[in-house]
């Protein structure tokens, strides 16, 4: 998988420009771009599980905040408050450097994924909660009148409607996640930003390294935006 991705990206961002501009500065084609491509692959490895597990966890947390008994609802709210109320960098540092004190030792990759997932789920929970409370009470009554249980009502009637309403907000959070995945370097996991920084400080070509790094993020976010637009169009148009 990794090899396939890298040969595709290398051909795209190194092979093609080289073909049209054979005189291109080898700093780009030999040093910067190959390393950024590896970083991009690592970033995607972080973003996809964090975004998807975070979204599902957020949907569960948001539902618990809205519908569970007061104790569970309050616990979910406190969870959300803690993760939204403290800096993500600090959360990552605690997970990676702090937890070994309890004999929990995580690889940099897992520490980063866990940190991102927990943090993003706290934000997603708020978007979902907002959408859940916006669904009219009558929808619940209609389901109860047909013999639906509370759980079946939330799962089949309320959540599907709420997720459609929450999608723009949730998409926004995924775009944030793409950018704050750059914090993984603080737990020594070298994704896009980590690799960009490495090259910049080794070669002192700071401006062009960071400028191209920024273009990579723009590219990632653009793809995510397109996907989200597609989802919104196909799901939201049903209402």
């Amino acid at each position, binding site marked *: 998988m990794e090899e396939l991705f890298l040969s595709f990206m290398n051909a795209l961002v190194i092979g093609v420009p080289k073909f049209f501009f054979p005189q291109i500065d080898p700093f780009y084609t030999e040093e910067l771009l190959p390393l950024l491509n590896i970083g991009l692959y690592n970033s995607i490895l972080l973003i996809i599980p964090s975004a998807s597990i975070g979204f599902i966890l957020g949907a569960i947390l948001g539902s618990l905040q809205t519908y569970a008994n007061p104790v569970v609802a309050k616990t979910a709210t406190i969870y959300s408050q803690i993760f939204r109320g403290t800096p993500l960098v600090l959360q990552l540092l605690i997970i990676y450097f702090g937890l070994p004190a309890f004999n929990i030792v995580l690889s940099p990759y897992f520490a980063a994924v866990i940190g991102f997932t927990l943090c993003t789920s706290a934000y997603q929970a708020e978007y979902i909660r907002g959408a859940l409370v916006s669904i009219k009470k*009558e*929808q619940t*009554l*209609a*389901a*109860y*009148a*047909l*013999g*639906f*249980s509370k759980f*079946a009502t939330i799962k*089949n*009637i309320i959540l*599907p*409607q709420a997720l*459609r309403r929450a999608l723009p907000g949730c998409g926004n959070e995924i775009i944030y996640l793409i950018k704050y995945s750059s914090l993984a370097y603080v737990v020594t996991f070298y994704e896009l930003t980590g690799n960009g920084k490495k090259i910049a400080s080794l070669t002192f070509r700071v401006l062009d390294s960071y400028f191209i790094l920024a273009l990579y993020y723009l590219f990632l976010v653009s793809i995510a935006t397109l996907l989200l637009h597609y989802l919104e169009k196909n799901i939201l148009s*049903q*209402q």
Partner: protein
Amino acid sequence: MTKPILSVRNICKSFNKKEILSNLSFDVQKGEIKVLIGPSGGGKSSLLQCLNFLIFADSGEISFKGNSINPKKPTELRKYRQQVGMIFQDFNLFEHLTALENVTIALRKVRKFTKKEATERALKELTLVGLQDKTDHYPAQLSGGQKQRVSIARALAMDPTILLLDEPTSALDPELVNEVLQVIKKLADNGMTMIMATHQMDFAQNIAHEILFIENGTIIEQGSPKELLCESQKLSRTYSFCSALGIHTGEK
């Protein structure tokens, strides 16, 4: 007299110390059509919602086919609700589902039909209410009358023993009222047991076996349309209420 299918005893309900229903009792026989009339805020909707426990009464007892229903037992309550269909004033269709899916979802998720069985059954009910060509429409694409007919199909698909109708036509444009009333008439002709709150007096007079006049949470008068609405009953509360609505009453 045969055993009543639904028996309501001494239902009381207060909201914020204001009494909405006070000590209401009545029986419904199989195939009987009861019509609830009376001023808005008089307790008709609350009574209907108490009947299938969308609102829990403070006291009183509801028995269905001779068994007292205990709403604190979720399984028993859900089983009872499946047999008591409810039609709401504002339709309350599931906004994210098509007309067909609105009917199939409870069949599939509550009665555990397969997708194919549920679709067949739903098409049958949608045809009954005359909407076989609107199955793929979402609620937002349907008129008020069509939405209400989908909601009737949705309730009928559960094979209810009794149907509760909460002012089914009062949210409709005048020209759409008839299409819904026709469907209800069809059900009445087929012998469906119904309790219906309505302001459509002409219609009520036609189909009701008994009219309950409800005001301030109690039954003020009850009797057949004939008894309550004929000229000789000019002093009855029902008669004056109907006159005030500008409805021509009296035997036809």
